[in-house]
């Protein structure tokens, strides 16, 4: 049955019995909206590809690998026959061999050959590095593998540039450290045979759009040095792995998705915490529900990972779980935490403890969702739906072994997205995960990279760096960033362009929060859009559970100076948002309801803030906020309604109905996009200056947008259907956080109005 590592746990009941007792427990059973069993899968093996060097086979044998799974063979063969390949790899399916084999094989055959690996984060690259290193050591060949990132000491760097066969890095380092200095990497670029991109699904949205351009730059440099590397990508399960790889790399890819790794029986359960206040539609918090379930599992000795959506919640859950699990004096902790902000050594200790079974439970942020090796646990509890299916599957995949039973429980939160998943567990279990969307052509992103690319190599006038490259070049030279000389455009500035471009966001700047005192301390960072709301003068800024009073926001210097306080109120700022349509790209009208997408200018200004008493939310004061208005150009999807569509909805209700609907659409949108609800914003206008009609907008947070609005427009009908379904099935009376937003006070009627609007839209749509 379930493996050997549980030997340390005394007298554990079979997992199946524990699951039964959980499933039929009167306290829980009514709240499971799904209890789905995935049958076990037998391993499917295939022959070693004939090309593989005997030495490599022997080395693999030394690591206990005598045979390969079918998907590994398919990937290796595709790569060795010169095709770009993307492999879909669930957790624990042996993905690293899919790229390590062709790479090592190629280097064995040609010691000059080079490979570049990149991972989205530093921690991951360290982990994968060790594995590769072990294999190379067993192999006994002179193959040098190095990590090259911000932590690499200066004296080692030269050696890596000269001699590294496999250089492991991350996209940020490639962007600022390697490409702009490519002349120091001649050896690598002249001989580059493979580029490995692991965790492909991470490269989505703005980040992915940036990375796609970094890869464009990489390919330009390779071409300059006469190399033409193949790309091997690994991705978690997403709807469009091949499309994402092709968008990211701009080349055709072979897809390998039939997984040959074995899998034990697995139960996936969805738990919707019970409603505790029917009027307001308030449910038990997902945190409490997750705590109860995890406590049950852990006290039965089931090795469990609990995912929490924020660092603070990790700490809270950790404390609750430790309190709930009695421990003898001197006995080590059974449950540990894991999140950003822990020291690397602490993290390694937890990883090891989990692998070796010494640690029974771990509470983690999505930091452990990525491919870090912690072995496979018996159960995974997700506090809230993590926002995307790809994340959900990775987190659920943390439980599950090659043999034996495992359990994953998704505890739904009360957000519309959470409720959607709770009410439609098939969404989670069915076979349609999100798509990874990127928009490499996003103008703001691309202009940044055209500059970086021009710094790296002059542009030929006819060079292709996305559509209308020539026009961009001409514009940049009019801006005096580039200068044309004959048939080439050259960089013409002292600045180093890559330094001004952060891959992680299209908006360049963050505000820093500084705690005042004899030794001022950097407390944290706040992104620019949030700054007017969170760190205006006199705001109460919350960090790690403590309160800080903002004494001064220096808008110009992007610094907020705070001091620690202990007060009984928090602050809530009002934001006045104005949205202006600049351009409509596409329009679809059906009986008075118009859906469009296009470019908008969003202006926002923080106006006043309220001081609200903790717990009671009683208003105990207010103040004005003096911060200049901000403008951003981005893309939006919007719906407008004519009088027919509004018939029967009282005039006074229209505003609430629109707001409720906007709230709902924005929160439900991630069902169709591989994105976080925070990547989107909504606005409702009773009379939009552009459409001259009641209109709701869902717009992208990132300047310029990354193509999500276009995608929402394309998915318009499904989006409305899903929204209507959710409102219809939601048990609340007047709206709740799980559908159109809380139905209290002046917005008490928004659910009915929003519902009517949705019905109008769907009844007009063609069947």
């Amino acid at each position, binding site marked *: 049955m379930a493996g050997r590592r549980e030997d340390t746990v005394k007298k554990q009941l079979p997992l199946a019995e524990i699951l039964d007792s959980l499933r039929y427990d009167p306290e829980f059973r009514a709240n499971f909206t799904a209890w789905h069993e995935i049958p076990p899968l037998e391993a499917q093996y295939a022959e070693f590809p004939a090309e593989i060097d005997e030495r490599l086979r022997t080395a693999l044998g030394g690591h206990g690998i005598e045979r390969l799974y079918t998907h590994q063979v398919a990937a290796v063969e595709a790569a060795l026959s010169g095709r770009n390949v993307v492999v879909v790899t669930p957790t624990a399916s042996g993905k690293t061999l899919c790229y390590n084999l062709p790479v090592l094989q190629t280097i064995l055959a040609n010691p000059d050959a080079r490979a570049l690996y990149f991972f989205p984060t530093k921690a991951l690259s360290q982990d994968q590095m060790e594995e590769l290193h072990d294999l190379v050591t067993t192999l006994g060949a002179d193959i040098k593998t190095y990590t090259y990132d911000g932590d690499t000491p200066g004296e080692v760097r030269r050696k890596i540039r000269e001699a590294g066969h496999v250089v492991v890095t991350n996209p940020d380092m490639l962007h600022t450290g390697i490409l702009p200095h490519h002349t120091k990497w001649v050896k690598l670029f002249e001989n580059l045979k493979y580029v490995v991109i692991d965790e492909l699904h991470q490269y989505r949205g703005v980040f992915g759009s940036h990375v796609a351009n970094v890869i464009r730059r990489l390919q330009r440099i390779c071409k300059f040095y006469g190399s033409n590397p193949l790309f091997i990508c690994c991705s978690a399960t997403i709807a469009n792995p091949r499309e994402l790889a092709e968008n990211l790399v701009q080349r055709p890819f072979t897809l390998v998705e039939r997984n040959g790794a074995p899998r034990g029986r697995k139960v996936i359960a969805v738990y919707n915490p019970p409603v505790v206040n029917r009027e307001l539609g308030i449910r038990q918090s997902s945190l409490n529900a997750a705590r109860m379930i995890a406590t049950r599992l852990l006290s039965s000795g089931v090795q469990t990972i609990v995912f929490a959506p924020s660092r603070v919640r990790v700490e809270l859950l950790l404390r609750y779980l430790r309190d709930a699990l009695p421990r003898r004096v001197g006995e080590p902790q059974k449950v540990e935490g894991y999140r950003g902000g822990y020291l690397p050594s602490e993290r390694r200790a937890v990883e090891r403890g989990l692998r070796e079974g010494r640690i029974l439970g771990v509470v983690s942020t999505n930091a452990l969702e990525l491919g870090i090796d912690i072995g496979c646990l018996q159960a995974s509890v997700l506090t809230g739906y993590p926002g995307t299916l790809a994340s959900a599957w990775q987190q659920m995949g943390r439980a599950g072994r090659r043999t034996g039973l495992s359990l994953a429980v998704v505890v739904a939160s009360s957000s519309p997205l959470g409720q959607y998943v709770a009410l439609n567990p098939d969404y989670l279990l069915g076979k349609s995960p999100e798509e990874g969307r990127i928009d490499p052509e996003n103008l*703001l992103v691309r202009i940044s990279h055209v500059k970086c690319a021009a710094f790296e190599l002059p542009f030929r006038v006819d060079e292709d760096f996305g559509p209308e490259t020539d026009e961009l070049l001409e514009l940049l030279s009019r801006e005096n960033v580039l200068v044309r*000389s004959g048939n080439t455009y050259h960089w013409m500035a002292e600045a180093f362009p890559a330094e001004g471009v952060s891959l992680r966001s299209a*908006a360049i700047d963050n505000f820093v929060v500084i705690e005042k005192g004899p030794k001022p301390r950097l407390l944290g960072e706040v992104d620019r859009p949030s700054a007017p709301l969170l760190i205006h003068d006199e705001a109460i800024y919350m960090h790690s559970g403590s309160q800080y009073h903002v004494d001064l926001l220096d808008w110009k210097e992007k610094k907020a100076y705070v001091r620690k306080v202990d007060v009984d109120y928090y602050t809530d700022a009002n934001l006045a948002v104005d949205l202006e349509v600049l351009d409509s790209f596409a329009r679809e009208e059906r009986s008075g309801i118009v859906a469009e997408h296009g470019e908008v200018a969003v202006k926002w200004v923080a106006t006043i803030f309220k001081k609200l008493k903790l717990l009671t939310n009683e208003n105990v004061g207010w103040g004005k906020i003096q911060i200049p208005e901000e403008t951003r150009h981005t893309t939006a999807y919007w719906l407008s309604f004519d009088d027919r569509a509004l018939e029967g909805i009282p005039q006074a209700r229209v505003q609430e109905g629109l707001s409720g609907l906007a709230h709902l659409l924005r929160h439900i949108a991630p069902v169709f996009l591989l994105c976080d609800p925070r990547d989107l914003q909504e606005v409702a206008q009773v009379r939009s200056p552009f459409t001259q009609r009641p209109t709701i907008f869902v717009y992208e947070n990132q300047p310029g947008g990354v193509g999500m609005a276009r995608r929402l427009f394309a998915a318009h009908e499904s989006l409305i259907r899903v929204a209507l379904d959710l409102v219809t099935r939601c048990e609340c009376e007047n709206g709740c956080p799980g559908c159109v937003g809380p139905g209290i006070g002046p917005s008490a009627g928004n659910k009915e109005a929003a519902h009517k609007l949705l019905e109008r839209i769907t009844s007009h749509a063609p069947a």
Partner: protein
Amino acid sequence: MLQRDRVLKALETLRKAAPAAETSLSPPAPTVPIEAQLNVPLVEILGGEWRETEQGLAFVKDTFFALDHLHGTLPIGAPLGAVGDTFRRAVGHADPPSVTRLGFFDTETTGLSGGSGTYIFLAGLGTFEGQRFRLRQYFLPRLDGERAMLRLLFRDIASLHALVSYNGRAYDLPLLQARRTMARMRDAESETPWEIPHFDLLRAARRLYRGRLESCSLVDVESHVLGVRREDDVPGHAIPALYFDYLRAGRASPLRSVFRHNSLDILSLAGLLASLVRLFDQAGSSALEIEPNDAVALARWYELDGDHRGAELLYRSALPRMGPNSNPQRWARASSRYAHLLKRSGARDEALAVWRSLWEQGDREAGLELAKHLEHATHDPEGALEVARAVLRHWPPGDLAGLRAVEHRIQRLTRRVATTQTHPRAVDTRENCGRIVEEGAAATGGARPQE
């Protein structure tokens, strides 16, 4: 909306979003069509001439200087006298080529950040040619003309046997290497700059003037050594903008000041080399003529080169002239090094005299040395203990490692005094004791005079 308008709007948004990061998007200057750039009469404005190469046209300007042309206080021909041992020492090379085979090299670039988007737009190479000094300047008239420029430069360097620069090892040569890679030049001729010896005068300047001049920048050093006063010189940080302005608007006349700046740099390289060799010459023949601070710095250089005898002589000639008053710290450091050299060459009594006088000035390290000497050489543990205790009283309380070392010594001396009284013949054989103290002393930094 037109793509162009959208791009413009996007650019505007970018500029609004991050004004600081986008300084390069400064108000647009009038742009001159590319054809106009070609029509700028460079020969008239800058002097110089176009040269045909297999990689296209290059622009070079030759300027000749008579050997008696004065640059600061020295004639430009001064380095020609450099031969033999003092020349070897000055450039730190066992077998330097004849001065007539040296190239004095310096570049002007489009920025300091490095990376493949930083161009060398002006390179200067000075050589002795018969009875004159030739300064050849290679100018990049258009950014796509790099190959032609580099071809001429590499060809000229290929006939040389060594390069002389100021910080060229860390800056100009790596940048030149990057440009060569960008130009995909892989022939043997273009390898020369990295194959011939390179004499970086910044290294010499640092050895001689670190801590004495405001900085070891070429401008500060040439002014001190050669008395060169640059009038109306364009400051280094303003240079890239002048070049960009030329590229953009065809304004070439302001570049004259850049050519002049570069030529002054190169003349100074020759002058610095000459004065450096002269310094070594003087050290051998008439050390008393060397300014005492220079002599002390040079003595240190001799030490680093392993010439302890030469260093000792230089210290001996310089220290009395220097005296403790003008710069007590430097004087104390130099005296202490002198004493170490004396001790090393067996002149123990002389060393002791130096340490004693330093100790009287309140120098703690000297006190320790004195204590060591008393203990090991004079076999006077009581005297050593007395000094060590006095040293301890003056030790800065913050320096724990140093304090521990001194206390350790005192304990040992105390024990030893006690033993000597009972067993007069006992001898301390623990040879590493002195070393421990020296390590402690090294950690404490400079000495401080007693108050």
